[in-house]
């Protein structure tokens, strides 16, 4: 008997399941943070979460609103400076998985979080790279989680903020001392993995009830599907409970200090 869950919950649970217990994960804010903490609170109690604010092995009780929330420091094993975080922990090779979101992604997993339009005359200016450009190359591998839409999954990103495999899929070839790059993309519709040879994204698993047509409809290029297309396993009851409690706790917490008086 199937449980009741939303597409967003399906995405988060699937993304969480991708993180194996014991993995060291450099966590991006938003969807990745939600998934990584769900993993920690369910099947992966020993997952090590690192945020770019310098908080090592943090166990937030509520989801942080920003990358540097007090909760992250208070529940961390220790907190180091930001240069140390990027130099020793990320570039030093101690991160297994970088977990990222994005605003745009193309078939070679290149990510754009910089802008829509032209750099000097942007239509929309986005926040920029932050930690992502080096997370993507210095972590052992990269998971990406993002909602599936034509606005996000585009034929060509307007700007390569963060490399996947480059415009031609070959950007990592022969570059020494970098990670494997993106190994899976988890959306609210499906799971994709890069083709081992061409590095082009291939849909390997459709979420229950989702059709290939829906995925193609939400993707800005002619997307490939694996020959043996699987159905993503559904969320379990405990996963959904833990996720919903986490989100409720988070909402209460962030509402709790909404004094806002001084504004």
């Amino acid at each position, binding site marked *: 008997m199937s449980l009741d869950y939303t597409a967003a919950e399906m995405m988060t649970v699937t993304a969480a399941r991708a993180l194996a217990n014991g993995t060291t994960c450099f966590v991006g804010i938003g969807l990745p943070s939600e998934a990584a903490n769900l993993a920690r609170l369910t099947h992966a109690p020993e997952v090590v979460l690192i945020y770019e604010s310098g908080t090592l092995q943090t166990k937030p009780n509520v989801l942080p609103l920003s990358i540097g929330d007090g909760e992250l420091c208070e529940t961390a094993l220790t907190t180091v400076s930001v240069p140390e975080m990027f130099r020793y922990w990320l570039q030093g090779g101690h991160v297994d998985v970088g977990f990222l979101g994005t605003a745009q992604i193309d078939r070679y997993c290149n990510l754009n979080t910089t802008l829509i339009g032209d750099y000097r005359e942007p239509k929309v*200016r986005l926040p920029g790279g932050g930690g992502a*450009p*080096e997370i993507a190359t210095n972590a052992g591998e990269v998971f990406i989680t993002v909602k599936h839409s034509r606005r996000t999954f585009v034929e060509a990103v307007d700007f390569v903020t963060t*490399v996947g495999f480059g415009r031609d899929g070959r950007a990592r070839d022969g570059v020494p001392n970098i990670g494997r790059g993106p190994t899976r993309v988890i959306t609210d519709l499906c799971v994709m993995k890069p083709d081992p040879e061409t590095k082009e994204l291939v849909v390997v698993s459709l979420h229950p009830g989702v059709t290939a047509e829906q995925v193609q409809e939400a993707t800005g290029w002619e997307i490939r599907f694996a020959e043996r297309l699987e159905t993503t396993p559904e969320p379990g009851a405990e996963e959904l409970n833990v996720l919903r409690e986490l989100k409720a706790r988070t909402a209460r917490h962030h509402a709790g200090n909404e004094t806002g008086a*001084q504004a």
Partner: protein
Amino acid sequence: MAEFLSLHDAVARYVEDGATLAMEGFTHLIPFAAGHEIIRQGRRELTLIRMTPDLIFDQMIGAGCARRLIFSWGGNPGVGSLHRLRDAVEKGYPQPLEIFEHSHAAMACAFEAGAAGLPLAVLRGYVGSDLPKVNSQIKFIECPFTGERLAAVPAVRPDVGIVHAQKADRAGNVLVEGIIGVQKEVVLAARHSIVTVEEVVDELQAGPNACVIPGWAIDAIAVAEQGAYPSYAHGYYPRDNAFYKAWDEIARDREAFAAWLEEHVYHAGGAA
């Protein structure tokens, strides 16, 4: 040797029009009080440096203080865009803003190199990214031992560095605790440094390896209670997430922003 000054006097003495100014605090301990004082004193043509411009630079850019911005992530964390920053970049309002855009790793290394007195930082960075195409400050060097191609960026060595911290002792030694970001680096890399603190205490009561910045490495210390509000100070007060959310509405509209600035900065005297 750190001199205890009012925030007004510290800013008046060290922050000049056209200066290169780094104001740090990674989400935590953002020196808002100092930013507001700079707006009140009407500084212009500043080159602003911060990894995450955050509301503080959105306000300073909106108020017309800035000509140039060096940064690595320009959003309102957990909320969305920085509308005053976008308005300056996209529409040139209230004046055009030239941007030099980096990744966090590169900027963190640039602060580290600045503190280390070096002219450049070297990192394994920007592989495959378009950022080097649009930022002339990003170059590449070859390792003389391995031949590896590595990124190089200029060290950050600002005219003035401003950070906020929890406390200073009476000799001007400062304790920073919690998320320490690049606070120490900014103070050490800057030609002149101002540290605002929540309070002055007799004893810092710091552990043997705590992040303590000696008074002789600081130019001015100014007490600014709640000086990081609406960001937070570990051990003192939490982040006002509601204000960060409310900011979206205020900053989206030029007039709403102007009204906010009038009421909460220009007419707020020396308070945050």
